[in-house]
């Protein structure tokens, strides 16, 4: 037990490296916020373009969705960071991670938004037309609010799952929690920094997981 504490809860080491690792929390949060903004924003825009049947663009968006829904997140991050510079696009670790995760989230979000819009009964469109509403009014005031409510459970689960991918930024030298903990562990030859990192991830994501469970159980959003 004593040996366990010395290795995994070494206060001396935690004091020395703690502040540095906690500072990584801000990087993790920054990437997470950027990922959600890029992913949900692009996802909604792409879904609208698909529903409006914009020519040519819908083929591009269709291909985008298939590719980024299928490839592993880490493979996309690695490709963006190590491959794209050969095509003249060099991104910082921060934007490579946020961009790659955002692209993956946008593909899932677009598909979820589109399916939700299409899942609404045709009667909603017909009723709006009977009231004399124009297409734009019908879409943004009648269809979209209902579709978003329908999309929320799938969307929150997917968003949480993909934001957890910020830890993958370690692979491209992003100085977030896990990366900092790993280097502190290498220098100090003690895994206590890792314990701290694990706790920080729990503090960050456990409330989200519990909230999503509550959201589903309370039926604030119809299933």
């Amino acid at each position, binding site marked *: 037990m004593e*040996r*366990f504490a010395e*290795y*995994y809860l070494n206060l001396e080491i935690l004091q020395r490296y703690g502040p540095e690792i906690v500072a990584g929390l801000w990087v993790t949060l920054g990437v997470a916020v950027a990922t959600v903004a890029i992913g949900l924003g692009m996802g909604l825009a792409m879904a609208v373009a698909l529903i409006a049947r914009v020519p040519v663009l819908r083929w591009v968006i269709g291909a985008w969705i*298939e*590719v980024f*829904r*299928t*490839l*592993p*997140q*880490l*493979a996309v991050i*690695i*490709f963006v960071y*190590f*491959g794209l510079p*050969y*095509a003249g696009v060099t991104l910082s670790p921060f934007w490579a991670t946020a961009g790659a995760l955002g692209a993956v989230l946008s593909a899932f979000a677009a*598909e*979820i938004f589109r*399916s*939700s819009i*299409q*899942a*609404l*009964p045709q009667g909603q469109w017909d009723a709006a037309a009977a009231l004399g509403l124009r297409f734009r009014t019908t879409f943004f005031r009648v269809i979209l609010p209902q579709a978003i409510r*329908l999309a929320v459970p*799938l969307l929150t689960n997917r968003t949480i*799952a993909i934001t*957890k*991918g*910020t*830890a*993958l930024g*370690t*692979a491209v030298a992003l100085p977030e929690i*896990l990366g900092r903990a*790993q280097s502190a*562990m290498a220098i100090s030859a*003690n*895994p206590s920094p*890792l*314990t701290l*990192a*694990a706790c920080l*991830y*729990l503090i960050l*994501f*456990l409330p*989200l*997981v*519990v909230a999503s*469970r509550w959201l589903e159980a309370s039926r604030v959003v*119809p*299933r």
Partner: protein
Amino acid sequence: MPEWLDLLLENFADPDSATKAWPLLRQGLWLTLQLTAVALPLGMLAGLVIGMLYALGGRITRAVLIVYIDLFRAFPVLVLLILVYVGLPFVGLTLPAFAAAVLALVLNNSGYFGEIFRAGLISIPYGQREAAAALGLSPFRTMRLVVLPQAFRAIAAPLASNALELVKATSIASLASLPELLRSARVAQEQTYNPTPLMLAALMYFVMLWPFARLVARLERRMLARGAR
């Protein structure tokens, strides 16, 4: 041919680099398939056990299982892998990279699959079990013949979706220096000074996983359509 296209082809579709990388990538693909073949059944089985324990358990069992599920759903799978692969050796428990990757994937997915099975099993009305008991079926046969078949239909979409995510997540084993597909591509890239192997690996992932991604999308659409009515 315009110059920029030439440059792109040279960097992302170089036949020379592709030929050199191919044996490495083939080995990598094989290892990815092996990881999947071990971790996917184990993860699903663990999830099924958790779901059944919840459905049959009392208040305390249920509370403990919910905490277990949410803890493992909150941990990024890479953090679990690093804990297992780099953290455990300090107490004298050294796992080879393959076993460490399997353990991390199974722990993480036991939470996800557990939640899916749990939700599916409790969605079956209790009257079904009472009726089965009245017919003289044992609790085990009730589960197998009455409850599970109905639950499976209700959770087909999330089950398939999570299975696909597990296969994709095998790529994190590359960060425990296990030479699966993604790691092999990185090694080949550094050997040939050309990102063609990365492109090729992405293509291999896509060809392998795309049919399943289509299937998942179809199942999810059907589920949403049921929810809208």
